[in-house]
């Protein structure tokens, strides 16, 4: 007690600050940092969940490097990112841009776009999975067959499966992106548009010279947000392909699903940890690049 009384006010403030910080610090150490560190160590070990762990050096990483499935999965993961992010951003911008001008039933339409975002990804994936089935149960193929067209193999084709899985994932995220874009659009001062109107510039110029440049912070935020989302895609893929997770022939398998499969079906915890470290590194690099872009503003 005496010791405390002898402290200066600023020292006391520091002591209290650390007292309050202790809880979140402890929480992060136990819940985040310890498991993360453990995963790093595990990636150099062999472990089947039972029994003892044994060190194997870089074996897991060498195996990863030589595993054709890993490279296929690596490509898929980036395909989800490269297709998913631009398509969802362009779509949501177009929707937001036009929705912003609609007055008639504005709230209802906006809600309709937002509902998929609130729906459980699992339920949605299963409904889409059934949509995609061939005749006699798939809605899309039944429609095509009624019109006399041939069937399209959605999920059971190595080329169509990935876009088919991606489509509902994009659709689900659209509502959120639309809302953010609309907030961004509303934040642009009306005076710029008034000035443009007085100068008589075309609406294309207004869009490309005023709206889009001023939306940059919104765009950067959404790019970061949706890239991380697509890099971590799992629910949609897993639920739409549970019979053959990530199939056919690994054509839809993302990194997270590979990790899950290695860890909890193959019980190869060390190898799974090595894959996790790779995913962590990718996410870190992508986030760092995007943070740098943010700072350039």
């Amino acid at each position, binding site marked *: 007690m005496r010791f405390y009384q002898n402290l200066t006010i600023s020292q006391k403030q520091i002591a209290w600050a650390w007292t309050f910080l202790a809880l979140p610090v402890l929480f992060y150490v136990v819940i985040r940092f310890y498991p993360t560190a453990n995963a790093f160590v595990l990636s150099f070990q062999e472990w089947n969940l039972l029994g003892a762990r044994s060190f194997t050096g870089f074996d897991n990483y060498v195996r990863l490097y030589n595993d054709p499935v890993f490279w296929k999965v690596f490509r898929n993961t980036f395909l989800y990112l490269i297709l998913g992010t631009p398509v969802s951003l362009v779509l949501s911008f177009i929707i937001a841009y036009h929705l912003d001008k609609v007055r008639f039933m504005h709230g209802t339409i906006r809600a309709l776009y937002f509902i998929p975002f609130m729906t459980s990804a699992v339920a949605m994936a299963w409904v889409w999975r*059934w949509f995609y*089935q061939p005749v006699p149960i798939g809605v899309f193929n039944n429609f095509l067959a009624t019109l006399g067209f041939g*069937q399209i193999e959605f999920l059971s084709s190595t080329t169509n499966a990935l876009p088919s899985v991606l489509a509902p994932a994009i659709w689900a995220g659209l509502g959120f992106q639309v809302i953010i874009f609309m907030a961004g659009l509303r934040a642009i001062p009306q005076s710029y548009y008034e000035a443009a109107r007085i100068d008589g510039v075309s609406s294309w110029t207004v869009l490309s010279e005023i709206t889009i440049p001023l939306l940059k912070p919104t765009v950067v935020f959404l790019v970061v947000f949706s890239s991380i989302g697509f890099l971590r895609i799992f629910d949609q893929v897993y639920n739409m392909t549970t019979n*053959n997770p990530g199939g056919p022939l690994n054509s839809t398998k993302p990194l997270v699903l590979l990790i899950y499969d290695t860890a909890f079906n*193959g*019980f190869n915890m060390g190898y799974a940890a090595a894959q996790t470290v790779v995913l962590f590194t990718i996410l870190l690099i992508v986030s760092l690049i995007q943070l740098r872009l943010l700072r350039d503003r």
Partner: protein
Amino acid sequence: MKLMNSFRTFMLGAATAALTAASATTASAVEIEYWQYFFEARITAMEKLIENFETANPDITVKMTHFPYDAYRTKVAAAIPAGQGPDVVQLFYGWLNDYVEAKLIQPLPADAFPPAKIEEDFFPMVKAMRMGDNYWALPTAVRSLALFYNQRMFDDAGIDHPPANLDELVEMAQKLTQKDGAGNLTAVGLTTGMTAQDHHWIREVLIRQYGGEPYLDDYKTVNYNNEAGLKAFNFYNDLQAKHGVTKASFMDEPQAAFKAGRAGMHIDGSFRIGALESVRGLKWGVAELPAGPDGTKSNYASYWVNAITSKAEGEKLAAAVKFMEYLTTDEAMQIWLETVGELPAKPSAAMTEKNINDPVYGPFIKGLEYARTTVFADESGQRQAMVDMMQRVELQGQAMDESVAEAATAEQKILDGYYKK
């Protein structure tokens, strides 16, 4: 027969004597713990068994704990080395190696469970639970495959009996297949799906029926990249590619197509019975798997086993042995069959007049006599090798022999990786 009976009586007597000796030292009550994963019917059945066991052994209480399937393995692995958790534990037969290696379970004492007697009493596939001179675990119930057929579709097609062999299977499937005007399948003659039970059907049944043996050296060496294997895979692939009586992933899942009445025949395990019984308006029957070209019959069986953990010692061990003995009695097996729908693991319990003539369980039980159990190193990985093999042929037009060779290499790699330790 008489000799065998007297041998049995002797062994039983010896076991009882050993146990009485063991339990004589335990005057006070013992509590042992039993763990299994959560599946409602299994819990109900086990509650019944525990109740019966406790009535017969008033000085022992059994506490059952169950976990969701996902968490099961981790919990077991964490608890036993810490000296906690179960004395008797349930595990999938394919996990035995891992459990033994991790020293989570101990061998069943040979005086209470003499290997010779087990081999005489149980169906032959239970041999997979023997390592060296000891048995490490024993099942109460097993599951086998059979052919489900849609009675109404059979009647409409004028078929009066289920297929007895593979030729009949193809012929009947052709009669049962329905297509719309544009040639799209609206009902398949036979469901197929490598991701369901078909990889077992090919491995342990078709390959053997075409004269092959799927694995050598106790399932450590892949042996289907040869003529017999190719014949089996070609037969399977032709069902879709040549005869057009099926389509992989038709209606998403084979069992869904059968439930919806859009599949004439469907190969599945005995665990499907419960689900089919609750489908209204579906009239179905069960038959043994069709025999091969030369009349060979084969089947695949899998099972969950119970084992005594390495944590059980002294009086708890004695109680655990008693409990294990009860779990492997005919009575326990009949209760399990009636509650869970899984088949008794011993011919004495399974092959009773009542069970064998049961229209639903009968064909499954007959299959047990010639069923095999694949010893998997990584079941999902090994299944994937077969799934990919068929899809390379179907989706990428790869030649069957190349695809089989590629799959054999991939599967051998999994096996080598597992057994290298």
